[in-house]
């Protein structure tokens, strides 16, 4: 357990960075989708 606290900065930093990247990517694509979705009629969206 002591070793974990020695390495905790690296390990937690790695996990935080990973989830931040994944979350940032998700947020970006949702925002783009909302912005574009408002400008395009629904009948031109093949998934509707």
């Amino acid at each position, binding site marked *: 357990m002591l070793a974990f606290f020695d390495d905790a900065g*690296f390990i937690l930093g790695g996990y935080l960075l990973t989830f931040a990247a994944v979350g940032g990517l998700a947020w970006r694509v949702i925002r783009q989708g*909302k912005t574009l*979705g408002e400008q395009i009629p*629904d009948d031109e969206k093949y*998934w509707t």
Partner: protein
Amino acid sequence: MTTLDAKPADSGTGGAGVGPGTRATRVLGILTVISMGWLVLFGLVISPADVNQGESVRFFYIHAPAIWVAYTSFIVTAIASGAYLFSKKHSLGWDRLAGASAEIGVVFVALTLITGALWGRLTWGVFWQWDARLTTTSLLFVTYIGYLAVRRLGGSHLQRAKRSAVIGLLSVLLIPLVHWSVVIWRSLHQEATVLDTDLDPDIDGIMFFSIIVGLIAFSFFYAWFLLHRTRVLAMEDLMDDRGLDAALAARRAEAASAPQRSEGEGA
């Protein structure tokens, strides 16, 4: 290309406003969040320290699944590129699928390199070595950055699709080189633990389960992102077409009014 379900989750007005989300993407999103929570639980809490690597083994649960999903992303890019190039229809849907898959692949390769560097600092004492595996993985990363850059060059959608499809098909050939680099060259990086030649993983118990949880979590996210991003790219193409149509219409109107003006000026 097909969608997982036909009905949007929040349709109702019939007008503009529906984003790329559907019931399928919402289910995938929920599954992603749940499995990411499991990954944190198993990766940081439940899984024990390794006898040799100590606590740094926890990087393994995000590092290895990240590169597996990146490999999958680039293979999907290559398949979609081939489908675009060799199908009779040359559907731009394949091109958008290829582009979206490459985008997430690049992010996962970057995560692989970063988590690998952090792991290296704890295990080897250095962030970076010009080791065969590290160097070839960097080459893979730079290659797909180039692929994404080529997608952003000017030209029509068809030109974009054609040139990026060729690069998408060629770039995938790097994957075997990256994967087998630890066998081909003498490498500081350990050989494959799970995807090894005897198909018998050198890891078991709760550690093996933790890495599978990581793989499931990243795979759900990959599927969710791919659906969303492909639809966003379709909308971007539509907006481009609209902008082009508007510019052409303005140009035609200008050309039509030009002789009338000159006639008026002559009189």
